């Protein structure tokens, strides 16, 4: 048993949902109690998806436990198939259903549905969301690709001389950190290089697409957290090599181009491809000198954390003072990346530990997840989000990839934005203790988020107002009541009440005045 305040990852069946929701023509029947449907809102609210996830929950209750939960599951699966007519039915259990051991896979097989059934065994008391996504994707690739496995000892036939090189892009899911935009960016890059994209999966793929993954020459393993297991199996079974480079940052993208060209067996002038990068020039421009050796703390999933550390150190000129991940499956890779920077990696899913580390290190910038953004807010340290777990603001309306050359520009902008601009920082140094320019102040381009509580408090406890010839006094209980109003509308409530009191020719504001005014302005 482990005490947990916040969790970086959900349970493994949420990982399976991320696969199902990313795809077309699949449906997931989940044996689960009431309440587990909360997971739908991750997709419909955080990602603002227009469709509900393709998931049917059996919603068993305590009274069902004594009778027949297996029958309930079979009914749900049968009805879901009839209604949604998927080409593949995923079945599995959430944490509670795992305990009652109804064997959804066996039950679904017994229904004799005319589509492949993918039974998922995702141990909820050992594993987590990313593992669940990776396992689901792997099981699906295996199930639908088993007929195309090369016999032992047989080599993959060489590509026809007149055929263009092709690859699959593996790993993007629903609820992924900028996955949609990354896929667009990387697909375009591959096309420009003369490499065809055979299938992108799971995002946007259907079961028939999964069945033709074997046709590509190689795989782009874009998100190892989700795609490693499947990519490894495909290397073994289809003879498809897989990329290692992650195209994050200017240099990361260059390394990725070099690697895919080599796997595709084509020539490419990397320099020519990358010379127009604005991110590179911005980092070299004099205005960026103030970024030199800014102390930065990095935490996220392994892929994004490692890439961010490289970009921070070698492209932005920051000093990385801490690097960590919650992805235990990829701990080794993060340890190596940290060692290269002379650091010891932090491998933990304990939010409190991360918070303690940040407090101790006092970095000037945090690159993290929504969790670290929160820590940063509390410690008043600038922060940019680089990885899941995500929140609604991590799905911006604009095109905003993290990968490729455009992604490098996005990283430059979003990491520099929270920081104080160079000259502004100097001015604060010059006029220390100034009432507007002080260490506690936020960068001026971030507007009024600077020390709002203080000015709010001053405003609220402001004593009797002088309005023209008339002195208006707030009675204590009215004042107290006003303070119960949320701070973001309190100012307006105060102004309206005073305006109303003046109009009514009142000398003091009582509780009743406050509510009279409220009613007055509402009507």
């Amino acid at each position: 048993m482990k005490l947990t305040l916040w969790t970086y990852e959900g349970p493994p069946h949420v990982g399976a949902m991320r696969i199902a929701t990313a795809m077309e023509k699949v449906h997931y029947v989940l044996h689960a109690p009431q309440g587990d449907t909360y997971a739908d809102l991750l997709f419909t609210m955080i990602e603002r998806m227009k469709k509900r996830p393709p998931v049917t929950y059996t919603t068993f209750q305590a009274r069902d436990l004594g009778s027949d939960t297996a029958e309930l599951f079979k009914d749900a699966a049968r009805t879901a198939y009839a209604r949604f007519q998927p080409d593949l039915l995923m079945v599995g259990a959430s944490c509670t259903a795992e305990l009652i051991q109804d064997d959804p896979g066996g039950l679904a097989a017994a229904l004799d549905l005319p589509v492949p059934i993918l039974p998922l065994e995702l141990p909820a008391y050992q594993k987590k969301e990313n593992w669940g996504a990776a396992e689901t994707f792997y099981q699906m690739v295996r199930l639908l690709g088993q007929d195309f496995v090369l016999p032992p000892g047989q080599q993959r036939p060489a590509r026809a001389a007149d055929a263009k090189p092709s690859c699959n892009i593996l790993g993007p899911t629903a609820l992924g950190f900028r996955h949609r935009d990354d896929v667009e960016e990387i697909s375009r890059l591959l096309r420009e290089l003369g490499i065809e994209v055979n299938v992108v999966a799971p995002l946007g793929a259907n079961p028939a697409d999964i069945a033709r993954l074997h046709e590509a020459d190689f795989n782009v393993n874009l998100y190892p957290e989700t795609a490693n297991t499947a990519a490894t199996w495909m290397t073994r079974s289809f003879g498809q090599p897989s990329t290692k480079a992650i195209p994050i940052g200017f240099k990361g993208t260059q390394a990725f181009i070099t690697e895919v060209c080599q796997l595709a067996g084509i020539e490419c002038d990397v320099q020519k491809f990358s010379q127009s990068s604005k991110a590179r020039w911005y980092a070299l421009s004099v205005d960026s000198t103030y970024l030199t050796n800014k102390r930065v703390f990095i935490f996220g999933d392994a892929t994004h954390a490692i890439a961010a550390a490289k970009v921070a150190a070698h492209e932005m000129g920051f000093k990385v003072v801490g690097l960590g991940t919650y992805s235990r499956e990829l701990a080794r890779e993060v340890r190596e990346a940290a060692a290269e920077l002379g650091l010891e990696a932090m491998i933990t899913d304990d939010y409190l530990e991360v918070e303690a580390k940040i407090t101790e290190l006092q970095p000037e910038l945090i690159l993290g997840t929504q969790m670290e953004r929160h820590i940063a807010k509390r410690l008043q340290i600038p922060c940019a989000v680089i990885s899941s777990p995500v929140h609604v603001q991590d799905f911006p309306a604009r095109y905003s990839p993290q990968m490729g050359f455009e992604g490098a520009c996005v990283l430059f902008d979003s990491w520099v934005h929270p920081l104080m601009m160079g000259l502004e920082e100097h001015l604060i140094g010059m006029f220390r203790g100034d009432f507007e320019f002080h260490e506690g102040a936020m960068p001026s381009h971030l507007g009024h988020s600077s020390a709002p509580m203080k000015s709010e408090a001053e405003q609220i406890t402001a004593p009797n107002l002088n309005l023209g010839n008339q002195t208006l006094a707030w009675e204590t209980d009215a004042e107290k009541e006003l303070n119960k109003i949320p701070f973001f509308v309190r100012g307006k409530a105060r102004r309206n009440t005073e305006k109303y009191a003046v109009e009514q020719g009142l000398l003091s504001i009582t509780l009743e005045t406050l509510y009279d005014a409220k009613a007055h302005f509402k009507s």
Partner: protein
Amino acid sequence: MNSVSQEVVLDSQPINFQPLKERGQREVFCGLTGIIWLHRKIQDAFFLVVGSRTCAHLIQSAAGVMIFAEPRFATAIIDDRDLAGLADANDELDKVVKQLLDRRPDIKLLFLVGSCPSEVIKLDLSRAAQRLGKTFAPKVRILNYSGSGIETTFTQGEDACLAALVQDLPKSTESNQGDEVDLLVVGCLADVVEDQFSRIFKDLGLKSFAFFPPRESTQKIVVGPKTKYLLAQPFLTDTARFLENLGAQRIAAPFPLGVEGTEKWFLAAAQELGVPADTFEKVIAPQRDRANKSLEPHREILQGKSIFFFPDSQLEIPLARYLNRELGMNLMEVGVPYLHRQHMAEELAMLDPKTQLAEGQNVENQLDRCREQQPDMVVCGLGLANPLEAEGFTTKWSIELVFTPIQGFNQAADLAELFARPLTRKNKLMMVEAA
């Protein structure tokens, strides 16, 4: 509506509503979700869910991820060592509780909250609470309740929590009989609403009343045969039962939503506690008139519009009654997780008899009916809202109705505005610009 001598509720023949009863997928939270507001209400309490990673993920997702820097809730996540018997779950729990209380010495009350997995593996949290209670007494009181989805739906979590608190109230004895409250208002209300209600009760001349749960867990409330209780929320079945075990009697009333609901709620209490009719009228009339006036602009927007409720918080019936009678909306289907006919009697008596009630849920079938009926507004949970908007419906998230102060006279217009806003917004965004 300008006199206390208006028709007494339940005067007419009660209408026998025949709800559509459905089973299937429920798009409703479990009782754990109540922790999100309960921990804000009882400010020295901590809620420790004994459950799985799913439980932890649910609470943080439902709470909009990380609103509070160091929340007063957490999850003791059961792992395979606990299940395989490699670790004794009770020893593990004791360790977690000690770790937690060491970290938070400010906590006076700890709830061990049961979940689906803890119920299924039959981890006895009431024994754990007793055991740990002895260890940490008198500094920390330790209680338990279940918020599991196999037993509770959304707001029933509050019921279970308050029921646990009621069972821990001091027994009314000869020595403290004099401290018994005359009136206990039961159910979490926003502080600002509580304060308004408190002033009205005082103006009505009541001297002995209390709100439950109290803001500080150390506040002593004595309930006994002299106590009448008034439900402020429509989902408190178990809490009510335990209060009656202590001898308290329920004041039958509709719920304080809307001007009419609020007035009848106060009226029921006033009549029960012998407030003179003229005092009642003197205190309530200005409140009622002001509130009625503030509804007018919203009525213009909502009048004649049809509304369809998916089940969520149990507030559906009182809300439907209010929207229909005070704002002129037409009721289509009104879904509730479950129907408590006794606590709902006064509400049902005022509900438009043509209303189709639905109890339980089969979300796919209900969506089919919704699409067929094409309401002007759909009240639903967060999982359904955006998909329905994308289909062209105008929706109101039901969770906002649980997280916003909506009860009482001064909030009647705020409540109307919550429903008017989506329509106003849709109008603004869909308006074609004049050439």
